[in-house]
């Protein structure tokens, strides 16, 4: 089910308008509108210092904004509003476990809510089982490993059965192996518990795994908001494109369509995409770099279902962790491709070389260009 379809079904559980926060004279947060839909996970993605943690604290009623209004479950809420605060629970980058046992930590919020000792025990056991930490009740909370501590922090929040879960870079301190495992676990828990969550992170891979919707923040503002596919597939401004490692989405026009496959004129080139737009429609087009395959220019290209096959010129080669990002161009068509270091060695590419580029029609993200009435 797409996030759009889901959004149509549910009401926003958080709505915020015109939020600003200033530290001294500097504006660190300036968000016109934010909505969190019931049951969805909304990732707030941005580099450090972009204001995303501040946004989370403001929405969690933990910090007072300079201006703005927040509605939680339909009622306007202020920073002193404990009723609204009791609907939420947070997990931060550092788990901040309290002195005491694992069970005492997980029971903390229940105790504040006056839950009986007997019920507390049952719920703590269930919450620990849910995060995969059965039998650790009596362990000291301060002697756990990083991954375990973060699981306890998650259990401490989940045990309250909050309607809204606030997650602030919950996995960024962990090493990659545990992180990968926990991203999957978090994603599963967020989906099955039906909780609405705000997930703040600087890691786009994490955001894409856990989120239904994503907002990208830069210098305190939202620069892009929407479903994960739209935002991550169609960066409309150069900063966002650079941040997520793509070329900026390109302007195109639908030439014709046949059986759900559109031919789109982009920068003087024709590309094939799955799209329901009418011929003549102005559109934005983007392709994730990991969907773009490269082959040596003169080589035999294997038989493949990829509809798009172009010869393009290598403009730049830029290492990005384990992968390498290759910037490509032909006339006005700019693409990026993400390939492994080994592939790069095999292809023996240098800027200025020609290369055969393959991508599937289904990998092409298409959206109506702004200001133009869209879809059929």
């Amino acid at each position: 089910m797409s996030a759009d379809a889901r959004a149509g079904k549910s009401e926003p559980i958080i709505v915020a308008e015109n939020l600003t926060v200033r530290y001294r004279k500097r504006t660190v947060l300036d968000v016109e509108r934010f909505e969190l839909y019931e049951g969805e996970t909304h990732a707030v993605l941005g580099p450090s210092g972009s204001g995303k943690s501040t946004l989370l604290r403001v929405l969690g009623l933990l910090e007072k904004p300079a201006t703005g209004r927040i509605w939680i479950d339909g009622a306007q809420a202020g920073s002193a509003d404990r009723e609204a605060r009791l609907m939420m629970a947070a997990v931060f980058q550092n788990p901040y476990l309290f002195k005491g046992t694992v069970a005492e930590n997980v029971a903390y919020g229940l105790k504040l809510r006056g839950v009986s000792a007997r019920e507390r025990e049952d719920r703590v056991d269930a919450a620990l089982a849910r995060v995969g930490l059965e039998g650790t009740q009596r362990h000291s909370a301060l002697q756990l490993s990083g991954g375990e501590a973060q699981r306890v922090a998650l259990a401490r929040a989940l045990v309250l059965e909050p309607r809204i879960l606030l997650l602030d870079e919950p996995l960024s301190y962990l090493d990659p192996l545990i992180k990968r495992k926990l991203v999957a676990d978090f994603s599963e828990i967020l989906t099955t518990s039906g909780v609405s969550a705000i997930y703040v992170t600087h890691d786009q891979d994490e955001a894409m795994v856990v989120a239904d919707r994503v907002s990208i923040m830069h210098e305190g503002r939202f620069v892009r908001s929407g479903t994960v596919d739209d935002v991550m597939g169609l960066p409309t401004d150069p900063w966002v494109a650079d941040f997520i490692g793509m070329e900026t989405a390109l302007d195109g026009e639908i030439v014709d369509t046949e059986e759900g496959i559109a031919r789109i004129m982009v920068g003087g080139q024709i590309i094939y995409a799955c799209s329901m737009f009418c011929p003549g429609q102005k559109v934005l087009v983007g392709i994730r770099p990991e969907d773009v395959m490269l082959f040596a220019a003169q080589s035999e290209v294997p038989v493949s279902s990829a509809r798009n096959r172009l010869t393009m010129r290598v403009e730049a080669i830029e290492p990005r962790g384990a992968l390498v990002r290759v910037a490509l161009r032909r006339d006005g068509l700019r693409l990026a491709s993400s390939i492994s270091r080994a592939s790069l060695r095999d292809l023996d590419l240098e800027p200025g070389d020609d290369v055969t580029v393959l991508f599937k029609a289904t990998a092409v993200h298409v959206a109506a260009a702004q200001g133009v009435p869209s879809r059929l």
Partner: protein
Amino acid sequence: MEDIWKGLMHAGALLFGGDPGVWEIIGLSLRVSGLAVVLATAVGVPLGYVLGSRKFRGRTFIQVIVNTGMGLPPVVAGLIVYMFLSRSGPIAAFATDVLNWWDPAAAPHDAPRLLFTVGAMLVAQVIISCPLVIGVTAAAVGSVPLEMRLQARSLGATSWHEALLTITEARRGVMAAIVAGFGGIISEVGAVMLVGGNIEHSTRVMTTAIVLETQKGNFDVALALGIILIGMAFVINNGLTALQQSGSRYER
């Protein structure tokens, strides 16, 4: 050397021989300083929490006042209390006015004696130990990260729960604050001498007794009291350290 040896022997004899005069002095010292530190804790820990955890206008200024108070020479604190409590001071004058209004038949009343009482010593000791408790508590509370408090709040803590959690998290520091407050007054001599007057069976405490016996040349008695004072400090600090460490079993 012989003096010291005699002093040690005498200290043992005084303590275990159950000399009522010595026990009376020890008892009064403990009662006055103990009550003073309880009052200073009741006032100082909450104020220290606020100072260490909240941002407000004038916080830096209050911090400076508290720091100055931590370094306040006890004898100056004694002098201030002396001036306030003396028969010609403002409090005695006010008390006299109240008495004259209450019972006009017997007017004019004499100004009540406030100085050279256990109460006066208590007031002076609370004033001396309060800044110590506030200052050390504020530092301890300030070392608990803001995120820890936000975490508690996000789990449903009220300001009260948040304060309780913060003080629990900072409990070693808070206990150090109370120990510092007690240490500052049990060993203090200038202020209790000024406002208490070292009156036998009334306001004589261990430090003032040591001064007196030394001046009289009774080094053995002075030394005996000194050893007892050190021993008391040892026992009390030992107990507090044990208390501090009782919470450490869950720490790294």
